């Protein structure tokens, strides 16, 4: 694909635990083009973060990873270790999920940010410092000089989250993968953080993992994950405002402003051979005992038998 930043082909990730096999990702196909932003939503345990880590080849020794991940045409799982270190951070920048533990408690937050900028952009310490201060200021971490000199334990979760985002937005990585970047932020700071993240997508791409469908709507495309599979993927407007998959509809219904009704029943640990959502679906029929494929319907791809074009 022309201008493709990331393409994931039939990605399968299995974890081996005491003899039993847990499948975290079950054949994920995904493409991110230059300048595109994608939101990845789904319940906890649906494999969103595993996907992020798999893209960075950080699951290497704990999981079996099958399939292909191409970053700008290069297979992440075939490249030499040195090249991989180069791509992590410089090519693909991860905003990790837990801001509370993502910073070294013994080093100043600002120093950790400018250290990273220095490494990626190859600039000197003073430049890196001023650039990280600018970026922290843009993200509303004020008074910025004090924040720069602070240690992580003296900052709130929301401040640390924004500091993490500053790492990604101060550098020009080709792909930013943000794992729940709006956690712990209020409306206004969330807006600032989202705008900063989306602006990085202008000369690269953004993949944002989120539970918050309102934030997801600001991305161009939204993908909904369930049990390690994409169940609906398409333009955010149509996926969120006019969803067709029963699972997506359930997620929308569980939003606070849409009635806050959770999806009934729990995720089955062994989903069986049919549709993985079968046991919880209120629209299930006999056809659902067979595994559905993603089909193009009404402007998006859906993995459901019961949706008609």
């Amino acid at each position, binding site marked *: 694909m022309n201008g493709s930043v990331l393409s994931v082909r039939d990605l399968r990730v299995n974890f081996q635990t005491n003899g039993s096999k847990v499948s975290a990702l079950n054949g994920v196909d995904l493409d991110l083009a230059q300048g595109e932003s994608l939101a990845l939503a789904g319940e906890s345990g649906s494999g969103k973060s595993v996907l992020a*880590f798999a893209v*960075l080849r*950080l699951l290497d020794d704990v999981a079996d990873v099958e399939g292909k991940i191409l970053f700008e045409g290069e297979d992440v799982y075939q490249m030499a270790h040195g090249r*991989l*270190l*180069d*791509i*992590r*951070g*410089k090519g693909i*920048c*991860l905003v*990790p999920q*837990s801001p*509370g*533990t*993502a*910073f*070294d*408690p*013994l*080093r100043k937050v600002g120093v950790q940010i400018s*250290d*990273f900028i220095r*490494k*990626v952009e190859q600039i000197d310490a003073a430049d890196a410092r001023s650039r990280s201060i600018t970026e922290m200021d843009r993200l509303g971490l004020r008074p910025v000089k004090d924040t720069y000199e602070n240690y992580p334990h003296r900052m709130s979760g929301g401040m640390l989250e924004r500091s*993490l985002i500053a*790492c990604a937005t101060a550098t020009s990585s080709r792909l930013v993968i943000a794992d729940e970047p709006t956690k712990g932020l209020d409306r206004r700071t969330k807006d600032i953080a989202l705008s900063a993240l989306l602006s990085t997508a202008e000369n690269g791409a953004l993949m944002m993992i989120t539970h918050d469908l309102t934030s997801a709507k600001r991305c161009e495309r939204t993908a909904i994950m369930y049990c390690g599979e994409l169940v609906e993927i398409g333009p955010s407007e149509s996926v969120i405002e006019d969803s067709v998959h029963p699972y997506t509809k359930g997620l929308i219904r569980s939003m606070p402003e849409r009635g806050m009704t959770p999806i009934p029943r729990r995720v089955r640990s062994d989903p069986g051979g049919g549709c993985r959502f079968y046991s919880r679906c209120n629209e299930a029929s006999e056809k659902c005992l067979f595994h559905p494929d993603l089909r193009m319907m009404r402007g998006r791809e859906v993995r459901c038998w019961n949706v008609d074009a």
Partner: protein
Amino acid sequence: MRTWKGICAYIVRTWRGLETYQKAGVFILLLLITIGSLAPWIAPYDPLQTGTPFQSPSFTHPFGTDNLGQDNLSRLIYGIMNTIKIAFVAALVSLAIGVSVGVYSGYYRGWREDALMGVTDLFLLIPSLPLMILMASYLEPSEWNIVLVIGFLWWCPTARVVHARALQVRNQGYVRSALALGYGGPYIIWHHILPNCKQVIIAKFTMGVALAMLAEASLSFLGLGDPLSITWGSMVNLAYSCGGFANDLWWWYLPPCIMITLTAAAFFMVGGRKNEGRRWQI
């Protein structure tokens, strides 16, 4: 760049963070080091100057004289720096080896860990004091033998403790984020693993100095140290071999024993950390 002001502020902050007994330990050590480094001006006599042997304590010789008539107090003061220097260097050597092995195997894991920790276990099996006696008696008598023996034998406990701590630290979120951001092993070890192992490294170092002092004293007492260097251990040895113990000349052998105990205790005090007010955890 750190300025003088910054360094002073750092020292003050560190000092305030210390427990009372740690402050006491630091105080004792600073006092000893001051006296020791000013030995040529403070000591009343040249430690090698001979005179009337076996004198009892008096105003001219507060701790009496030894079998050659050398002033015991002067030898005690000159012994401070020799003893601390040997112990310090020995502890430093064992610390350098132990920390490298521990951090390296703890961070990289895999076959490197198996190999290095296997070697550590092997070294732990070697009984150190008999080997020290053996080595010291075959090598030329020199104070650096002790450094060699202690340095190359006592890194194992340090390696194990640092290894355990490194295993904890490498699973922390910040190490994982550093990996995700493309930092390589050396950077992560230097900037994240080592600083976060600081506590156990410092504790192990001060304990190492104390233990090295005791080992030096034992070897010197057994006559395996350098007979020409003035250390507290060699003073006790002299008192033992020249009748100080037999004739109960306590002012000869007791002061160096007390000094060894005091200094070792001071090092333990600096490095030790009280655990819930009950136990001493090193």
